[in-house]
């Protein structure tokens, strides 16, 4: 058996990368094992804190909501702990090179969906369109992009908010094909030629006005700041994006930057499927075994593949094989652990009342569980060293 590292993290979604970063920032060593791409490409990149009440009403002040509601941990009600953790994420992302403002938001803000409806959100990168209150907007129609029909988005937005919404249609560059989806556009706009073309195409659209211009999320992958800069300069007003269904460019941007940063900090990424795990070791599908001071599973819920539903309805941890319960009539996104009592710590998955689909608290869930696991991990390591 290879003895290595301080910790083995299984899974490369947001919880896995955040936990790995916490260990790496404190000079621990991490082996990050994942067999697939993780959940980042599924999401536009927003981290939700708490969007909705039990009754589906939107939450304006998520700090207040958490203070007023009991949870698995008393600590969760403490606004200052939340603030510290969001501030940590802010400085971490800034170091990684994911652009975020210098202050964490106090309140939820509104984002626009690909159907022109509004939903609250809390934590987003600067490219992501959010607003404190609805105002007049311009939506950009991108030819061939069936996930975002600007005309419909504008109509729904106006019907929803009573605000004016205009649209304009982007031209197409040479070499464009009708089957280009968001990523094709984004890779094209990453190039110098793409940015030059965009500048020219937008120059024809410049009109008087101050409304923000909202694009579907296509404005580059690795060079999105440059693409946004071109658009903002030519249009002379704020430009931001609406995230689209997967493959979502925003999540891909974040994952690429974050994993690059982790590699630079000496984290080893192993591409393999984990077939068994206990507190101190994992077995890979090819027969290798890895050992460490600790193992943390960030393998996701049912969608991520960390949990599996059997025909009988029983829910099984796909790595440890433990049966953790039976499916009721809840949303599948809410299937998780009643308590944090598994043999191997699990992060980034539902625990007692967290419900990313219904409550909109998926970002908070990742943030909180990664920090709790990290505290437990350093406590455990300190104890081991004392002994």
């Amino acid at each position, binding site marked *: 058996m290879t003895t290595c590292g301080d910790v083995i993290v299984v899974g490369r979604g947001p919880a896995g990368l955040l936990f790995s970063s916490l260990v790496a920032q404190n000079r621990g060593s991490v082996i990050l094992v994942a067999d697939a791409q993780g959940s980042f490409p*599924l999401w536009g990149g927003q981290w939700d804190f708490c969007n909705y009440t039990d009754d589906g009403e939107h939450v304006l002040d998520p700090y207040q909501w958490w203070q007023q509601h009991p949870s698995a941990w008393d600590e969760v009600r403490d606004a200052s702990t939340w603030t510290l953790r969001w501030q940590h994420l802010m400085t971490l992302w800034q170091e990684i090179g994911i652009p975020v403002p210098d202050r964490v938001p106090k309140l939820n803000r509104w984002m626009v969906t690909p159907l022109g409806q509004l939903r609250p959100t809390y934590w987003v990168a600067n490219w992501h369109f959010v607003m404190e209150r609805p105002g007049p907007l311009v939506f950009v129609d991108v030819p061939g992009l069936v996930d975002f029909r600007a005309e419909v988005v504008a109509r729904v937005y106006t019907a929803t908010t009573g605000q004016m919404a205009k649209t304009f249609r982007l031209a197409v560059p040479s070499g464009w094909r009708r*089957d280009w989806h968001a990523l094709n556009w984004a890779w094209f706009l990453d190039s110098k030629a793409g940015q030059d073309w965009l500048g020219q195409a937008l120059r024809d659209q410049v009109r008087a006005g101050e409304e923000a211009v909202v694009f579907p999320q296509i404005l580059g992958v690795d060079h999105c700041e440059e693409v946004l800069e071109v658009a903002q300069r030519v249009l002379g007003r704020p430009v931001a994006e609406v995230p689209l269904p*997967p493959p979502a460019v925003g999540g891909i941007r974040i994952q690429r930057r974050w994993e690059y940063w982790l590699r630079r900090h000496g984290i080893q990424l192993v591409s393999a499927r984990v077939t068994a795990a206990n507190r101190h070791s994992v077995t890979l599908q090819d027969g290798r075994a890895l050992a460490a001071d600790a193992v943390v599973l960030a393998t996701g819920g049912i969608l991520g593949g960390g949990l599996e539903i059997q025909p009988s309805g029983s829910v099984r941890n796909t790595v440890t094989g433990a049966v953790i319960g039976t499916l009721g009539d809840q949303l599948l996104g809410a299937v998780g652990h009643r308590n944090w009592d598994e043999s191997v710590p699990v992060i980034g998955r539902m625990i007692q009342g967290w419900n990313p689909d219904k409550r909109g608290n998926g970002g908070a869930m990742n943030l909180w569980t990664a920090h709790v696991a990290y505290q437990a991990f350093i406590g455990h390591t300190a104890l081991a060293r004392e002994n």
Partner: protein
Amino acid sequence: MVVVIGGGCTGLGVAWDLILRGVPVTVVEARELGSGTSGRFHGLLHSGGRYAVTDPVSAKQCRQENEVLRRIAPSAVESVGGYFVSVDDGVESYMRDWIAGTQSAGIPVTEVSVETAIRRLPGLNPRVQRAFAVADAVLKGFELLDLLRVNGERRGVTILTETRVTQVQTVNGQVSGISVRTKDGERRIPCDAVVNAAGPWAGQVAQLFGERVQMELSSGLMLIYSNRMVPSVVNRLAPPGDGDIVVPHGRTVILGTTEVPQVDPEPPEPTRESAEYLQSLGQAMFPEMNRWRILRAFVGVRPLFEGNGVVPQSRVSRDFTVVDHGRQGGLQGAFSVMGGKWTTFRLMGERTADVVVEYLHQSSPSISAHTVLEPDAPREKHSASSTICECERVSEAQLLDQMAEPFDNWRTRTWFAMGPCQGTMCAHRAVSLRMQYTDVEGGLDELTNLRRERERGVRPVAWGTNARELALTEALSCQTLAEGVAHDHLR
């Protein structure tokens, strides 16, 4: 003029047979064509083998109609062939009866070696003892309904959908017309005769005639798997029971079925327990079936009828019955056709029309067994159009072609949202295309309804990969698209 109540295969079959004899017909359907049992079956065009022992009349009808449908509707029949395989111990005496039964019904059967069966049917239980090839085929139900609609309308059949019959009018004990309710209000349609072809709703429609008919409804669960795992129909050679048919259908296979007595003509919701039970039975034929990627479950209601009162459910014949209510001392010019199977819909139409034309004092014979149902001219291919549904390759242009249709028809005519992702990635695209032509609120409601309709069939079989797919649907729908969230307070 004759009014036919019910726009399933039976009603359209009656209308087709009548119009071919020169009798003017109006079909009145409360919902959409095929929205009852006709749109909810496993797709098997029976060779007759299934009923060779228990139901010789149906066996023979199936054998004959199988040949007729291949002739008159070749575009709606896929000649995949079928097998009866014996995987159980202790069925030797049934097998002897079955072979004798197929012979007396004239059903061609060829025994194949076990090795051949295993080679032709990948994944077949290696414990198979004997295997017999039969002429089972696949009936593409929605296509055949569409053929009946197109050909019927071409010859003058009037089809009224979303039209509910509220009353039957009489003069001197004879039918003189019906009243219908549509979304535009009530109106009256004069007619000389009314045919009740309402499938599981036949009992309710008969009440409009002042008649009471005893339906013996039963529901059957079916499971759809997302790949064509077997190339031919496979039947378990044992007394007909649950979970004993596997039918390849397009790029999927369907496992059928169960038989649960019920009173309500509306199909019950499929349940996880019954789906797990059905799959475990299917594993007797294909032991690895629990590893196949399941897609969804659906339930159909068999409109069976036992004129002589209550008999044990499993023994209700798949044969059909035509009742001339006038001859039984009831309303003159009122007829009901009950029971039967998709496979025998044309024969049901013919026999019903025989009785109706006699009542109308006409003598023209049925020619539906010899009249080919001609498909519409194939539509142009739209290569310069974006793809909306990637699973089923449905383009924007195809959806625009059918835009005038009600939402559910729009889906079944184009087949969007019917593939492995069940609309996860395309439902909002299709709806947003539609919203360019409809009002905003209506479009968002349709999206909610579509999600709900798809989930009903997916959730009972949410296990393995399919559960991940449903979790993705829920996450996209709740988070990325924030569907169903009210924002009135923002205005």
